[in-house]
C-alpha cells in the first residue's frame, strides 16, 4: 500500500505547469482590492456629501426641505420649490413617457412583424445614447419654439379651464422641461419593459388565445398581469433617471425658484440648482446648502432605485402565481 501514496512534494503543492500558487494568491488579492474599492468609494461619497452639507444640516435640519427662500446673498436657504420642481417635472415626464414606452414595448414584443423589431429597438437605444446636453440644445432651439408657437396655445385654448394651463406662455417652463425629460427616460423604460415582457412564457399568451381572447385581450388579461411588478420596476427605474437628470432640464426649465400652479411658468429642480450655482458659490454656507441638496437628491434616487430593483428582481425570479381567480 505504501507504494501507491503520492510523493510528499506533490501532496504539499500540486504541480502546476502554467502559473504558480503565488500567482493565485496575488490574483485573488488584486481582485479583492478592486471589489472592496467600490463599496469604499461609495461610503466615501456618502461621508463627503454629509461633511460638505454639515453646515447647512446643523443650521436648518429637516426644515431645509420646507423653506422656500433661496437667497445666496442673505445666506438664507430652503429647498421646498426645488424638491417640488424635481418631483413635478419627473412626474409629468412619466405621465407622457409611460404610455408611449409601454406601447412600443408591447408592440415590438407581441405584435410587430419580426423584421422591424431589431431596427426599432436599435433606434430607441440610440435615443438613450444621445448626451443630455444635446437634448438641451435641441430643446432650446427647436422644441421650445414649436411648443411656444403651436402646442402651448393649443393646450391653453382646450384645457385652459384648468389652472395648470393658464397664465402667460414662456418658452422655458416646467412643461417644456417635462417633455424633454419624457423623451429622455422613454428609452430606459422601454428597454426594461421589453426585457420583462420577453420573460413572460409563451404559454400564458397561448392559453389566453386558445380561450378565445383577441390578441389585445391576451395582452391585457394574460401578459400584463404576469409582468406587472417588472413593468412597475421599469417605470420606477425611469423615475430614478428623471429625478437626477441635470443638463437638459437646466437648459429648459427656466431656473426660477418659484412654485407656480401653471405648467407654462418656469421652475427649478434640485439638480439644476447645483449645476448652475456650484462653480460660482462664494460662501461656505452656499456650498453647504448645495451639498445638502445633492445629499437629498442622492437619498431619493437610492430609495427609488432600490424599490425598482426589488420589483424587477421579483419578476425575473419567476412566476409568482396567477393571483388565483
Amino acid at each position: 500500500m505504501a507504494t501507491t501514496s503520492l510523493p510528499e512534494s506533490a501532496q504539499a503543492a500540486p504541480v502546476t505547469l502554467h502559473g504558480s500558487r503565488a500567482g493565485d494568491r496575488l490574483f485573488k488579492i488584486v481582485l479583492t482590492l478592486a471589489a472592496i474599492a467600490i463599496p469604499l468609494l461609495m461610503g466615501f461619497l456618502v461621508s463627503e456629501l454629509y461633511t460638505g452639507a454639515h453646515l447647512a444640516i446643523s443650521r436648518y435640519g429637516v426644515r431645509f426641505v420646507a423653506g422656500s427662500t433661496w437667497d445666496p446673498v442673505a445666506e438664507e436657504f430652503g429647498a421646498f420649490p426645488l424638491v417640488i420642481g424635481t418631483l413635478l417635472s419627473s412626474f409629468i415626464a412619466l405621465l407622457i413617457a409611460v404610455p408611449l414606452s409601454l406601447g412600443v414595448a408591447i408592440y415590438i414584443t407581441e405584435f410587430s412583424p419580426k423584421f422591424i423589431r431589431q431596427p426599432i429597438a436599435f433606434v430607441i437605444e440610440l435615443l438613450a445614447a444621445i448626451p443630455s446636453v444635446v437634448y438641451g440644445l435641441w430643446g432650446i432651439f427647436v422644441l421650445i419654439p414649436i411648443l411656444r408657437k403651436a402646442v402651448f396655445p393649443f393646450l391653453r385654448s382646450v384645457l385652459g379651464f384648468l389652472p395648470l394651463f393658464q397664465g402667460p406662455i414662456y418658452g422655458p417652463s416646467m412643461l417644456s422641461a417635462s417633455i424633454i425629460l419624457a423623451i429622455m427616460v422613454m428609452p430606459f423604460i422601454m428597454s426594461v419593459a421589453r426585457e420583462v415582457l420577453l420573460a413572460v412564457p409563451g404559454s400564458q399568451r397561448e392559453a389566453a388565445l386558445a380561450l378565445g381572447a383577441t390578441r389585445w385581450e391576451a395582452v391585457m388579461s394574460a401578459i400584463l398581469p404576469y409582468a406587472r411588478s417588472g413593468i412597475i420596476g421599469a417605470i420606477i427605474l425611469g423615475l430614478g433617471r428623471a429625478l437626477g437628470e441635470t443638463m437638459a432640464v437646466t437648459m429648459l426649465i427656466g431656473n426660477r425658484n418659484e412654485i407656480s400652479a401653471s405648467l407654462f411658468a418656469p421652475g427649478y429642480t434640485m439638480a439644476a440648482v447645483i449645476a448652475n450655482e456650484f462653480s460660482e458659490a462664494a460662501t461656505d454656507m452656499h456650498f453647504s446648502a448645495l451639498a445638502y441638496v445633492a445629499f437629498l437628491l442622492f437619498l431619493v434616487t437610492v430609495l427609488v432605485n432600490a424599490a425598482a430593483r426589488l420589483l424587477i428582481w421579483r419578476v425575473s425570479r419567476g412566476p409568482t402565481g396567477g393571483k388565483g381567480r
Partner: protein
Amino acid sequence: MNRRVLRRWVSNFMVGLMVVAVIIAVLPLLFILLNLVIKGAGSLSLGFFTRVPVPAGETGGGVANAIVGTLLIVGAASLIGVPLGVAAGIYCAEYPGSRLATVTRFVADVMNGTPSIVVGVFAWTLIVARQKHFSGLAGSCALAMLMIPMVMRTTEELIKLVPNSLREAALALGYARWRTSLGIVLRTALPGIVTGSLLSVARVAGETAPLLLTALGSQYFSLNLNQPMAALPLTVFQYAIGPYEEWHRFAWAAALVLILVVLTLSVLARLATRRRFTFND
C-alpha cells in the same frame, strides 16, 4: 356576433395606437439628428477642428481645445474606470457566493443609479476643494466613477456566460487559477467586455454635469490634466446658453461633433456583440 366584431375592433384599435406610439417614439431621434446636421454641418470646416475659440464678437475659431480635452479627460477616466470595473467584475463572477461579492454588486447598482451631478459634487469636495483649483483630472475621476458600475456588471454577466467546461478543461490541464481566469475565461468573454467598456465610454463622453463642477471648461489649448480643461459637452452647454447668434451656430457644430463621436462609439460597440460567440458549435 356583434360583440365579437366589437372586440376585434378594440384589438385592432389598440394595435393602431401602439403603432402611433412607435412613430412618436422614433420621431425625436430622426428630428434631432436632422437638426444637428442641418444646423451644425454648415459651420464645420478645417479651422473648426484645428483652432481654439475666439472672443465673443469675432467670427471663426474652433473647438480643438475641447476635442483634445474630451479625449484626455475620457481617456484618463477609462484608464481608471475600466481596469477597476473589470477586476471587480471578475471577482464577483469568480466568487459569486461570497459576502463581498453580494455587497459589491448591490453597491454597484446604487452607484449606477446615482445622478451624475451628485458624483460631480463628490469629485468637487474630494479633489477640487482640497486642491483649491478645478482640474481635468477631477473630471476624469468623476467620469471613472460613472463607468465603474457599467463595466463591472457587463464583465460579470459575460464571464458567467462562459461555459464551465472551458474552465475545467484548463484547470485539468494544469493551469493555475489565475491563468485560467485571465487566459481562458476572460479571453473568451473579451469581445463582450470590450463592447461594454466602449458603451460606457460613449455614455461618459457626453456627460456634462459632473464636468461643470470639476473640469470647468477653458478657452485655451491645454494638455495639462491638472488644470481646468475644455470639453466638448461643456462647449455645447456654454455656447448654447450664451446670447450670441454666432455662439449658437458654434454650439450646434460642437454638438454635431459630439454626437458623431458618441454614436460611432455606441454603434461600433453594438456591432461587436452582433456576432454573439457560440461555444457549442
